[in-house]
């Protein structure tokens, strides 16, 4: 794909040009991703806002509820329960951001006619679409991870301060919370589920945004619903709906074994099993097909 750097050194016109004509193949990609972040600031503002909200709530909980808890065990419980909740809330936020980002990614530039400007620059359609796909696949999971870890760290420090302030030992809190372990599991979950397992979802949304002239959200949702309904009426089965449900629910059994009573939660993670599950690879193939179609569409599409 990246023939930009050395595509045409033999051109006779080249010798007249004094400006540096060679640009590394990754630069358009790098700047395109940055461009996406400039345009869609909600990518980081939304999860940061939720994180701030969580911290604010936690501060009140720490000072209020935890301090008034009758005994140490209950106090600890109050301090420990919000970690997972905070993570879920931030992940939910970035998921929603990802959905709306993808639906607008290849639609907005056609709507505001700026596609004519972007296409006047030496950036291929493939680079553009890949840079847009990298937001839900790479940027959002990493960003989510960093924001959650930092939020949890701040929460831990806050509660430590409270415990120390009330003359209690913080050591148990730190061993109990096992921030490091939680972080590893979180990263695994984000990469395995949010990026890889849901890749066909992101691909589908990008494809719809490249194709739809308006109401991208409806075009993304209604065909799936229609297939499910037709299948139900025609064959009285619901394989399609089941498949979608399996995909959406995060393919839990492929990613990790069922959470049991095992003491070390890390043993739940089954990356080997995940990497060898056909569901992952079928999903990635579907994702690649959707993305290829989106690249092709962008080549044909102009302003709407």
């Amino acid at each position, binding site marked *: 794909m990246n023939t930009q750097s050395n595509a045409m050194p033999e051109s006779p016109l080249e010798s007249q040009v004094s400006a*540096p004509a060679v640009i590394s193949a990754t630069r358009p990609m790098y700047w395109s991703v940055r461009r996406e972040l400039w345009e869609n600031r909600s990518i980081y503002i939304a999860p940061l806002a939720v994180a701030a909200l969580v911290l604010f709530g936690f501060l009140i909980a720490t000072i209020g509820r935890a301090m008034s808890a009758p005994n140490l065990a209950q106090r600890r419980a109050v301090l420990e329960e919000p970690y997972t909740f905070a993570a879920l809330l931030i992940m939910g936020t970035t998921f929603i951001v990802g959905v709306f980002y993808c639906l607008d990614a290849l639609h907005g530039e056609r709507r505001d006619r700026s596609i004519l400007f972007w*296409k006047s620059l030496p950036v291929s359609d493939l680079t553009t679409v890949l840079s847009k796909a990298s937001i839900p696949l790479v940027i959002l999971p990493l960003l989510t991870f960093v924001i959650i870890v930092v939020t949890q760290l701040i929460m831990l420090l806050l509660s430590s301060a409270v415990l120390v302030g009330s003359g209690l030992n913080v050591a148990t809190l730190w061993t109990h919370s096992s921030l490091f372990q939680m972080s590893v599991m979180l990263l695994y979950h984000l990469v395995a589920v949010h990026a890889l397992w849901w890749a066909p979802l992101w691909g589908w949304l990008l494809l719809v945004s490249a194709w739809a002239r308006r109401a991208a959200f409806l075009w993304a949702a209604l065909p799936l619903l229609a297939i499910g309904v037709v299948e139900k009426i025609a064959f009285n089965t619901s394989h399609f709906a089941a498949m979608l449900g399996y995909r959406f629910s995060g393919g839990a059994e492929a990613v990790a074994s069922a959470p049991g009573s095992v003491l070390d939660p890390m043993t739940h993670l089954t990356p080997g099993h995940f990497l060898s599950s056909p569901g992952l690879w079928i999903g990635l193939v579907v994702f690649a097909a959707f993305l290829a179609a989106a690249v092709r569409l962008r080549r044909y599409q102009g302003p709407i």
Partner: protein
Amino acid sequence: MTVIEARSLRKAFKTTVALDGVDLRVEEGRILGLIGPNGAGKTTALNAILGLTPYQGELKVLGRDPWNARDQLMRDVSFIADVAVLPRWIRVSKMLDYVAGVHPRFDRAKAETFLSRTTIKRTSKVRELSKGMVAQLHLALVMAIDAKLLVLDEPTLGLDILYRKQFYDSLLNDYFDRSRTIVVTTHQVEEIQHVLTDVMFINRGRIVFDCSTEQLESRYLEVMVHPEQVAAARALKPMHERQVFGRSILLFDRVDRQQLAAFGDVRTPSIADLFVAVMGNQTSQAQGAAR
């Protein structure tokens, strides 16, 4: 060096034929005005040249097939397709960052110099700029790109006369040199005719007139004929005749200047007058064919 070469270029949409066998050749160092009525196929032709639309027939721009190598072609070609296509959310400084990041031939210092002659602030967002300022910004970006071909599709549509004049002045003074080529479409023909080296008229998807401006001056003459001599002048077969203040102005193709001087004042027609004449003949021919 041929910059654009098209042979029997065709493009049909569902209900209309936008390009109906266009043959076109543009040499290096020319400033070509592509002029035609609305819906004549100007924009479609430019879109084909820029790799924005697929087509039938043969087309080479700087030796490349635009449809299959748009991104490579865009290193040597700049275009302003219509006014106001700059993304409205972006800041001027970020715009410079981005173009400098992706374009190997963009000279940021040059763009900054052009911008410093305007009132555009680096911290402004495009949506905060007036239409004229957006055009200035776009021109500053494009002029800072060391391209071999610049394509302008109605670059000054909707701008006031000051901006329009300034636009073409900077283009000529600060950008154009003999190694660059410019193709421009516009409805304000009068304003750019002194700029052009070549003129092409396009109508119903076909090139109906193709002439360099030097040739145009030697070939076409316009005479304001005294009323009593109109019949004699008509005998020389003018290609077009119009009435101004009760007097007839006849436009001739390849008729001797001395001969015409006998009828009245002889002058070179404006491109606009020539356009009206050629299009008028086109229409009457089309009507004749339809009958």
